[in-house]
């Protein structure tokens, strides 16, 4: 038999971040299911996934099962998983081992709870929980790397050596997609901002609209029969804003240069109600908060109480400083390898110019070593890097000895999780 590394046992890979849950079969090149971690509910009913918060339902609230990449509401999260397995993937979980991802700041309690859900609720034959930074490194084909993960709610820097997280080197701040969007809004001039705010109306509320010239007043009628809840409005608005940010914003490759950035093309964006506007300089200002948050009045970072001390920081630190801090915490001999294998992943990493900018910033801070920033070429690989790594890991023939089996779980209980998943 030809050994090429892979032996698929049709494992399932589930990766849940602050806002998005990806799930699919190990061995595939993209997740089959990408749904929000949010759900919509009233007193009696709860809806998840594509049929969840995206759909307007009278009197329904929207809430998130996750907070800061950790599971916040385990009951609802279990329901979300059930929805994923039974309605999206349509699988019988008893036939498929389950590979889960976790952030580096996950707690013992959280991972044991997830294992419990997997074994007791879904009755999986095998379970494993892997660090998402490690998986991102695997997705890039590296076992030693420095992972910069810029997600919806935080930026984290995680050193990986030989497939293991160096826990002392995990640092992060609370700058992510949400804060960038806020910063983008703040950087607009007052008329643009008020225009945008008045025209931020979810498409579900619009009855009809006609096309207008950019910058002109939109012509549309809203539905009068509905009365959305505040949480639903927030969720829908943030979704529009996220799309607006992703499609217009970029970052200057070589530091802030007003003159050069004025030469850059203007981007326009059309909101759901037909209003369109052009964005020029401010679309570059928005992302500067990633590199240095201090001048932009970022929200103070309130770390979770259960986080290890090294992760805590009261104010969001600039990204180059985070990287430097992370490198300093790593062992001397691994630093060189880490710096020449920097990988940028996460939803925000798809921002145009970001990897070049980070490379340039690092040259300024660490000019004495070879710094090489890698970032996957296509957006799918950046956004779902950790899922992809999980897909690779879960389909490796050599990995199948690492699954925590149902029997082992029954025999050893909770401690087996930390024994096996290091």
């Amino acid at each position, binding site marked *: *038999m030809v*050994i090429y590394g892979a*032996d*698929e*046992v*049709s494992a399932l890979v589930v990766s849940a971040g602050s806002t998005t849950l990806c799930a699919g079969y190990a061995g595939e090149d993209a997740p089959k299911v990408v749904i929000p971690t949010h759900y919509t509910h009233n007193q009696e009913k709860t809806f998840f996934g594509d049929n969840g918060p995206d759909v307007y339902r009278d009197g329904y609230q929207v809430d998130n099962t996750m907070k800061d990449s950790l599971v916040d509401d385990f009951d609802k999260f279990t329901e979300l998983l059930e929805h994923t397995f039974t309605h999206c993937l349509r699988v019988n979980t008893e*036939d498929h*081992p389950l590979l889960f991802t976790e952030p580096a700041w996950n707690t013992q309690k959280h991972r044991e709870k997830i294992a419990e859900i997997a074994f007791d609720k879904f009755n999986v*034959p*095998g379970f494993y929980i892997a660090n998402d930074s490690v998986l991102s490194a695997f997705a890039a084909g590296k076992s030693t790397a420095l992972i910069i993960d810029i997600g919806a709610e935080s930026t984290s820097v995680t050193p990986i*050596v*030989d497939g*293991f997280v*160096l*826990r*002392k*080197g995990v640092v992060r701040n609370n700058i992510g997609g949400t804060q960038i969007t806020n910063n983008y809004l703040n950087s607009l001039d007052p008329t643009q901002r008020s225009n945008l705010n008045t025209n931020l109306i979810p498409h579900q509320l619009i009855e009809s609209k006609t096309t207008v010239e950019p910058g002109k007043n939109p012509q549309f009628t809203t539905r009068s029969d509905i009365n959305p809840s505040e949480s639903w409005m927030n969720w829908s608005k943030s979704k529009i804003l996220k799309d607006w940010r992703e499609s217009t914003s970029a970052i200057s490759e070589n530091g802030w240069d007003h003159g050069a950035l004025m030469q850059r093309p203007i981007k326009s964006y059309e909101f759901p109600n037909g209003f369109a506007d052009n964005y020029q300089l401010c679309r570059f200002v928005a992302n500067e908060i990633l590199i240095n948050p201090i001048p932009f009045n970022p929200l103070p970072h309130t770390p979770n109480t259960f986080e290890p001390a090294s992760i805590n920081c009261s104010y969001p630190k600039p990204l180059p400083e985070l990287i430097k801090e992370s490198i300093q915490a*790593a*062992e*001397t*001999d*691994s*630093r060189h390898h880490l710096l020449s294998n920097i990988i940028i992943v996460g939803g925000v990493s798809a921002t145009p110019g970001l990897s070049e900018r980070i490379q340039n910033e690092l040259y*300024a801070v660490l*000019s*004495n*070593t070879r710094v090489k920033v890698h970032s996957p070429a296509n957006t799918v690989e950046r956004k779902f890097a950790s899922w992809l790594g999980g897909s690779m890991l879960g389909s*490796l*023939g*050599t990995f*199948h*000895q690492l*699954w925590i*089996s*149902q*029997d*082992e779980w029954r025999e050893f209980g909770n401690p087996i999780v930390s024994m096996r998943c*290091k």
Partner: protein
Amino acid sequence: MASDIEFDVESLKTSQIPTNLLAMMAENAPSVVAARNPNVYAGKGKQARKWKWESFTNPARSDGLQLRHWKRLDEFDEPYPYARFNTTSEPYSYSEDEYDRMLQDVTWSRDETDYLVKLIHEFDVRWPVIWDRYEWRSGRTLEDLKARYFDICRKLIQSRISSDESSTNQLLQAYQFDKEREMMRKQYVNSLFARTPQQITEEEELYIEAKRIEQDERKWRCERDELVRTVSMSRNEKRKASGGADIATSTLAPMSTSNEEQPHKRTAKSAAYDAQHYITRPSSHLPLKSSSNIPPFSRATKLAQKITPQRIRECLQSMGLSDKLQYPTAANVAKYEGVKEATAQLQEIRRAHERVANELRLAKGISVSADERATASTPVARAASEHPTPTSTPKPTTPAPENSMGLSTDSSDPNESNDLNKRRKL
């Protein structure tokens, strides 16, 4: 395949395309036509391979977990092929008895050592990870951990009985760990890492400067060597003159290396014969100057090189000396060679002097404006003018007066050259 295509073209020609269109294509019929080959997917009469979704157990696991994968039916049952990748680096561990006997350490408690070895097993000797996860007590450096573990390993290797002595030694060598040295290295690496950009640019500049200086130095030394050689040749000459024939033979000494044994066998009789006929045999008793790196050679080739250069011959002829000796005994040859060498040297010195004088003139011309430099050069210039060019009148008679000339230049030349170099550096 080719015939298929042709066939298809033919069929195209005959059936589907109207004749006028075909005439336009004429010779330029499409080179590639989608060939319809019905046999490509027919499987060539073979049945598709059969696969089965089958459960398997992995021998690398202890719990016998049954997972399922696709398996070819035509393959024999064999143990799970990936199980053989389940390897470890086989770190050392010790027994209770072994620890009590030899592994005790004042700075390491038993529990902490156990903890360390457990971590090493857990992470398969990945030191950076082990150090990162080490939480027994803070303050242990990676070198501390390594030193302790390698010390344990060495002691265990020594105590455990091994059949092969050399393999034991090899193992011991592999587990050698010099903590001080390692810490020093880490310190250097850290200081390299902690350099600021200013320091780096400064370092680069210094490096380039050092390179430049080195190059200058080399050039300068080269020039000086040449000068020294010229001067020392005349010194040798003096020594040779006083030493007489004895030293002259020493130049021939390396030639005797091939028949070193022979002179010892000579009898008194043959010695008397030699004396009578003025035969001097090269002696091996003389110390060889650099016998070690003289390759074997034929004496004839050495002698052939002794051809007198044209200009020296001319010089000698002007003094009434022929270039062949009538009666070339060893002593005569030595003397004659001495004269020739002295002549050669004389010419060398003359040329060197001319060159230096030229340079001096040039340098003077450059530094005319700079007063202090001009004054610095005056004594040398005076010295140069005091000594008239020694060989401007080629009147060499005997080696002795030439030597005195040589000595006089000996005293002035290095000064001159040094001075020149100083100024060049300025």
